[in-house]
C-alpha cells in the first residue's frame, strides 16, 4: 500500500507544549513539510525566537540556534554570511519581530539579506501572558490594555509587512492565515516560495502568518479562527504584499 501522509522527517515525533488551538504547531509543521519537500533538511539552520516558539528546536530536526528576544535577524544575517551555502531562516512572533526587534528586522531587510522569515502574527505577546503587541487590534483587550487598545494611548496596529515592502532590498512578502484549511494550504505555498527564493539567491523573503492564540484572546479554538476571519483579516488583509 502506498503511504500518502506521514510525519515530515524534519519534525521530531514528540508532542508540542502549545495550548489547544494555537497556530504555532501548524506553522512548525508547514515549515517542516516544505523543508522536506525541497530536500534541504541537512543544510538548513533555523533561528528560534524568544516567545512561545522558544523551543522550536525541540520539534524541528535540523540545526538550530536560539536568538535573544528580537535579535533573530542579526543572528541569521551572520550565519548566512558565514555559510552562504546553507539555508537560514528565522521564525519570529510579532513582539519579537515588530517591537523589540524592529531595528534588526528593518536593517536585515534593507540590506537585502538572502534569508527567509516566518513571521507569526497572533496580535498578542503569547509567552508572557497576553500583553499588547504592536499588532494588537484597536479595541482588543489584553492584560496591558484592559479596556481595549486605544489609538490615542497606544497607537495603531503596526503593519510591518507593508512597511518592509517599501524597501528595495526586499524581494517577497506575503500575508497568509491559518483560519481554515484552504488558507493553510495557501500559507504552505507562500512558505515554499520564501524558501525557494533563498535557494535561488533572490534576497529577503517574509511570510506573515495570522495565527490563533485562543488562550490570550479568551476565546475557544473555533471562535479564535472566526476572530481571524472576521476581525484580524480586516486590519491585516491577506495576499501578496510584494
Amino acid at each position, binding site marked *: 500500500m502506498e503511504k500518502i501522509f506521514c510525519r515530515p522527517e524534519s519534525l521530531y515525533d514528540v508532542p508540542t507544549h502549545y495550548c489547544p488551538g494555537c497556530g504555532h504547531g501548524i506553522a512548525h509543521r508547514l515549515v517542516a513539510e516544505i523543508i522536506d519537500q525541497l530536500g534541504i*533538511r*541537512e*543544510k*538548513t*539552520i533555523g*533561528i*528560534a525566537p524568544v516567545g512561545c516558539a*522558544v*523551543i522550536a*528546536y525541540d520539534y*524541528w*530536526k*535540523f*540545526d*538550530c*540556534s*536560539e*536568538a*535573544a528576544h528580537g*535579535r533573530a535577524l*542579526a*543572528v*541569521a*544575517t*551572520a*550565519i548566512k*554570511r*558565514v*555559510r552562504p551555502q*546553507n539555508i537560514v531562516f528565522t521564525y519570529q512572533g510579532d513582539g519579537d519581530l515588530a517591537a523589540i526587534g524592529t*531595528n*534588526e528586522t*528593518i*536593517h536585515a531587510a534593507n540590506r537585502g539579506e538572502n534569508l527567509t522569515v516566518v513571521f507569526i502574527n497572533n496580535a498578542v505577546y503569547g509567552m508572557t501572558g497576553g500583553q499588547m503587541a504592536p499588532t494588537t487590534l484597536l479595541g482588543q483587550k489584553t492584560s496591558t490594555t484592559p479596556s481595549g487598545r486605544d489609538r490615542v494611548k497606544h497607537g495603531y496596529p503596526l503593519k510591518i509587512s507593508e512597511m518592509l515592502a517599501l524597501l528595495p532590498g526586499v524581494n517577497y512578502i506575503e500575508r497568509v492565515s491559518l483560519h481554515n484549511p484552504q488558507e493553510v494550504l495557501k500559507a504552505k505555498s507562500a512558505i515554499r516560495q520564501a524558501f525557494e527564493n533563498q535557494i535561488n539567491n533572490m534576497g529577503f523573503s517574509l511570510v506573515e502568518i495570522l495565527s490563533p492564540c485562543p488562550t490570550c484572546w479568551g476565546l475557544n479554538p473555533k471562535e479564535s479562527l472566526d476572530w481571524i476571519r472576521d476581525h484580524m483579516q480586516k486590519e491585516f488583509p491577506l495576499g501578496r504584499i510584494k
Partner: protein
Amino acid sequence: MLKKKILITGNEAIAEGALAAGCNFYAGYPITPQNELIAYMAKYMPETGGVFIQAESELAAINMVYGASAAGARVMTSSSSPGISLKQEGISYIAGAELPAVIVNIMRGGPGLGNIAPAQSDYFQATRGGGHGDYHMIVLGPACVQEAYDLAQTSFALADKYRIPVMILGDGFLGQMMEPILVNSKSPASSRQNEQKPWVLSGCKGRKPNIIKSFALAEGALEQLNLKLQQKYKVIKNKEIRFEGLFLDDAKIVLVAYGTMARIAKSALNRLRLEGKKIGMIRPISLWPFPQKAFCPRNKKAKYLVIEMSYGQMLEDVQLALNGKAGLEFLGRSGGGIPSEEEIINKVKEIL
C-alpha cells in the same frame, strides 16, 4: 614566521592582531575612541576573505557575532563604554551558549554619555560579567600597542580553547596612540575553515542536529549548566593568570596599575628608583582571572598603592587579594582626569 615592523595605533594593532589570528568575522558600530578599529576591519577584512558588517546598533553587532560564532567563524566586535553597556545581554547569551568571541572595549569616560577621554571605569562591568547571570569573561588589559597586538592573538586562542567570550579592555589612550610594533602576516580566512568544532551549526548532514542555546528550562538543567561554567572558570583561574612584576623582592611600596595607567606608574617608579627609593610594581594583565598570587612579596611589610583612571574598581580585587594583610592606599581620577607621574611620586613620598 616573517615579521615586519609597522607604525600603528592601538586600535589598528588589535584589528591587525585579530586578522593574524585568523579572525574571519567582524561586526561593529562606530563610537569614539575605537573608530580606527572598525575602519581597519572594513578595509582589511575583505582582503583575507572574511566578513565585515557595519551593524545597525551594538545590539545587532553582538548578536551577529553570536550567530557567526555559532556558525563556526572566528569572531570579533569592538566598541567603547556606552556601546559595551548595550552589548551586555548578548555577551551573557554568548557566555551561556559557550561560544568563543572576542569583544574589545576601548573605555571612555562615564557614566552616561560621559566624554571621549580615556578612562578605566568599566573595570567592574568587565570583570564581574557585566550582563545578567553567573558568568565571567576572560579580560585582558594591554599597556602598549605591541601588547595590544599580541593579546589580540592570545584572546582568540583562549576564546576557542575555553569556548568563552574574551574581552580586551583598553582605554582611549591605548586605542589612539601610535607606536612601532612587530607583526606577523595576516591569516587568510580560509585557513580556519576546517578547524575541529563539532558543535558548530553547519547543517546536520551525516550527524544529529546541533543546537546553540543558553535556555535550560527542565528542572535542574540550568543549575547543571552553571556548574559546568563554574568548573571551567576554576580551570581558567588556575591556568590563565598573567601579570608583570617589577622589583617585588625589595619593594617597600608596590604600585598596582594596569593598561595605560601602568605606563605612567612605571615612569614614576623609574624616577623614584633613581632617587634610591625601594618601589616595586604589579601590573595585572589578566584582569579576570585576577592575578591574586602576585600579591605575596618577599617583603612582608610592603605597602600597596593602587592607581587607576577610576575611583577605585580594581582596588577591590587588590583588597580581596591582600585580605587585610598589608597596608593599602589608593590614587585615582576619573572622567578624563589621569593621575600624573608627579601625583604618583608625591603620593608615594607621603606614604613612605
